[in-house]
């Protein structure tokens, strides 16, 4: 069989049992859907973790450097000594640096979400998705390569209330 199997679960408990079935079957590549975040069972899901925090940190560091750079360069552009002090006064630039650290960190985070989550309102509905997952259902969509073991009975025993077979989308 070469296709896709979509299993719908009515509650978190049966969903976790379904994930354990997939782990025991050695299946690592599948998509999961849920009405709320699944970080609690991250280790049962493919590709746990996320690089977003590093992107946020990188953005924040850039913001800090940009702020100091902006303040110092603009002060030196009109290189006038006022009040006996040098034109570029680092202490006074900590406030703009703080603000731009937060700003660039936030912009980097949202950019990371848009790119990594593949947010595209014009894209087709992903395979295995059905509207119930935004309300109260859980679902897994498992691509089945040639010769893959049948999972229907195992998933039903785990508590799946509906199982659909589909040809695998490209």
């Amino acid at each position: 069989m070469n296709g896709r199997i979509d299993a719908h679960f009515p509650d978190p408990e049966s969903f976790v049992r379904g994930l354990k079935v997939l782990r025991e079957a050695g299946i690592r590549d599948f998509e999961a859907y849920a009405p709320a975040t699944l970080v609690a069972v991250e280790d049962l899901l493919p590709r746990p973790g996320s690089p977003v925090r590093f992107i946020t940190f990188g953005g924040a560091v850039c913001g800090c450097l940009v702020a100091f750079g902006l303040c110092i360069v603009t002060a030196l552009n009109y290189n006038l000594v006022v009040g006996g002090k040098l034109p570029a006064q680092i202490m006074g630039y900590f406030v703009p640096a703080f603000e731009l650290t937060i700003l660039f960190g936030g912009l980097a985070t949202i950019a990371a979400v848009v790119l990594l989550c593949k947010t595209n309102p014009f894209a087709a509905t992903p395979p295995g998705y059905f509207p119930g997952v935004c309300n109260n259902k859980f679902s897994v969509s498992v691509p089945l390569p040639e010769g893959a073991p049948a999972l229907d009975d195992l998933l039903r025993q785990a508590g799946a209330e509906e199982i659909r077979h589909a040809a695998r989308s490209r």
Partner: protein
Amino acid sequence: MSMATPLTYQQIDEEVIRTLAPVTGRYRIALGISAFLAAMMFLAWLLQVMYGMGLTGLNVPVSWGCYIVDFVFWVGIGHAGTLISAFLYLFRVPWRTAVYRVAETMTVFAVMTAGLFPLIHLGRAWVFYWTMPIPNRAHLYPNFKSPLVWDVLAISTYLTISSLFWYLGLLPDLAAVRDNSHGVKRRFYRYLALGWHNRWEQWRHYTRAYLGFACLAAPLVLSVHTVVSFDFSMSVVPGWHSTIFPPFFVIGAIHSGLAMVLLLVIPGHRLLKLQKLIGMRHFEGLAQLLLFTTTFMAYSYGMELFMAWYTGDIFERSQFLYRMTGHYAWAFWGMILFNGVVPFALASRRIRTSQRWLLVISLLILIGMWLERFVIVVPSLAHDFLPNAWGIYKPQPIELVITVGSFGFFFTLFLACIRLLPAMAMSEMKEEDVHHRLEAAR
């Protein structure tokens, strides 16, 4: 006394999505009044642009008046929203989830309203771009050592981060609304939801991003109004040059913001019939926070007076004596009464659990906080060092129309938003239950 009862996930969605139904007569009246006031504000602004700042009461020595008061007031209102959505998220406060969307929406629109006032106060609003560090013929750039420029950066950052944080939290709920809509509405929410489908591939990035935003927004609660306070405390004007200003402003901002949240949520949950989701524990939680901020406000008022006397600085003593007995004494005593005395009634559980009393106290706090900003800005300029430099400021009708109109502007945006976007965080309300059940089932 209404009580929120636990609902199924389906019921949560139904209760919230129902609020997006076609509007009622009362909503139309409220929106109509708000829009009218907002229109009057823009008309008054247009008159000011045509005839000049002479229409206002601003002059020497009081060159900062109602517009700066309104600016500080509205920026302050926004802080409670970020406190609830970011701070209370990091501390995992359980009652936060049902009210945080309303609070965050309030923040975004309050900061937008605040952002109008520097432009209005500028007079020649079309030269606002001179504040931007872009190369120009005069080789002049903003002075990045000035608190006024820090303020521009702080408010811009606050508006951007609040808006993005608000929108990120909306994504899963917009997807739920999309799937429960048809026709043009479905297409509208489909574009807003940006292709969100509750996939694990999306949740794993979303969760980290949301936590990252909360970590970024939380320091803003403390820093933004601190920077606004620097507009005053970095000067040497008597009554302004005080180290208590940063915490005083921040706590005052949270104080006014919490009052505004209560003012929005108490009638809002009745009008939208959300009594099953929002109950007395939410109001009591907000009231307890309000009681805490009241104690700090009362302490700040007392400390300012004490330090003015204790320092022996004749100018500081004269300023505070003027505040208590001079031309603006009515504002000073109103501020003390509404901010430092009346809210202590919240120490009584009977008052704290009465929606009517919470509404009355919230309204008085908002009036008191506006008076506080007025007392900070105007008397200090009217009565500084030299008697020959003293003067009186009388707000003119155009300033009062713009002040009242700003409330119309805010409520127009808010009322439009709660009918278009889900007023409560559906996915977050399910998240705690999902998280506990997934952990237990592992």
